């Protein structure tokens, strides 16, 4: 169960990072930080 959860979070984190680098709008890039930080903390199971 935990592995599946981590795989989902990893996929979403990777997806967000990929889009961060493809994004042409500076403000959209900035707002990605807010979401990506939460996903990365989840990925490393930091709570």
């Amino acid at each position, binding site marked *: 169960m935990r592995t599946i959860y981590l795989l989902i979070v990893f996929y979403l984190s990777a997806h967000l990072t990929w889009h961060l680098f493809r994004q042409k*709008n500076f403000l959209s890039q900035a707002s990605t930080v807010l979401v990506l930080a939460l996903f990365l903390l989840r990925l490393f199971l930091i*709570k």
Partner: protein
Amino acid sequence: MKEIKGNKLSAAFFFLLTLTVCFFSGRSFLSLHQPEAIFPGPGLTEQKMLSSYFPALKNTPGDTAVYFFRGKEEGGRVLILGGTHPNEPAGLVTAVLLIENIRLERGSLFIVPRANASGFSHSDPQEGNPQRFAVPTPSGQRLFRLGSRLTNPVHQWPDPAIYVNPAGQKLSGMEARNLNRCYPGRAKGNLTEKVAWAVMELIRRENIDLGIDLHESAPEYPVINAIVFHENSSELAALALMDIQAQGFDIRLEASPANLRGLSHREWGDHAGVKAILLETPNASHGRLKGKPSSSLIVEGKDKFYTRASRLGWLFVPYGEEGIPLSLRVARHLAGVEALLASLEALEPEKSVICGNIPPPHQVIEKGLGPFLHPPD
């Protein structure tokens, strides 16, 4: 509005910024996994881990310290649990105050200050609670963690949709992480059930006579300023109540409902046959009507919204502008522990536990907690 163009360089900057945010916030979150220092007084006989009663708990986040005090004479055996709910700080601080001050003359006393150790390693999401609260002492501030009512989901996940606890009670899923719903525990259950099982093992192996579980509740909750007792402890609780009232504290009795299963005051009595008592004090910091959560709300207990609610008659305790400070809540618990020990002695002299150097409740109210706490590191 003019669009600002981003490029790979700005993306790399933001990615680095994300990592930096993660590093500092992660470090801050992980610091909660380190237990605060407790400085046992010279009266301590032995410190062990809860896993010594249930080895399966060893090296898990549920393992926690047990402080053992033995008197010169044989007598009764009493267990005091603080931190069953880590967001109810008076339980932890009362246990710490006892560990750092008492000397036992007769009998044995086991104190577990952080019963749900995992619950102390995180805080409740979306509450805006401080990670720690500061208790002033003459030599500086002592910091204590304010945890969550529930076990850390990193340590126990996922929650079931409906939780059927070891006593057969159906509860909402998240209660699977509530230590005070998991008694008598399961040896092969989830982490919280294992902790509950280990506490039961301690009670059984050490032949405990009386168990006291220290809690707090929100001022709008009906079971407050109360002694909750198992029916096998009714006389003990009634005697203690009169003693506590004689000390000037307003307190009431609540019988442990026989049909609400999984709680310490029910299962300790039913499964181990010990006298089981739970003490409640009023704590605004985990109530629903509070204003901004802060360390001072926990320690000083002043909250204008609770004062207003009290004026409107919405609360089960009077809540004036002076608030209900942590020192008063801890003093209530200390008075409760003293009264219960005295009542145990009155009812069963051969099981008496005589404990010296308990910080006097009225002095704790008057001088605060600081003079009775070890100076910070």
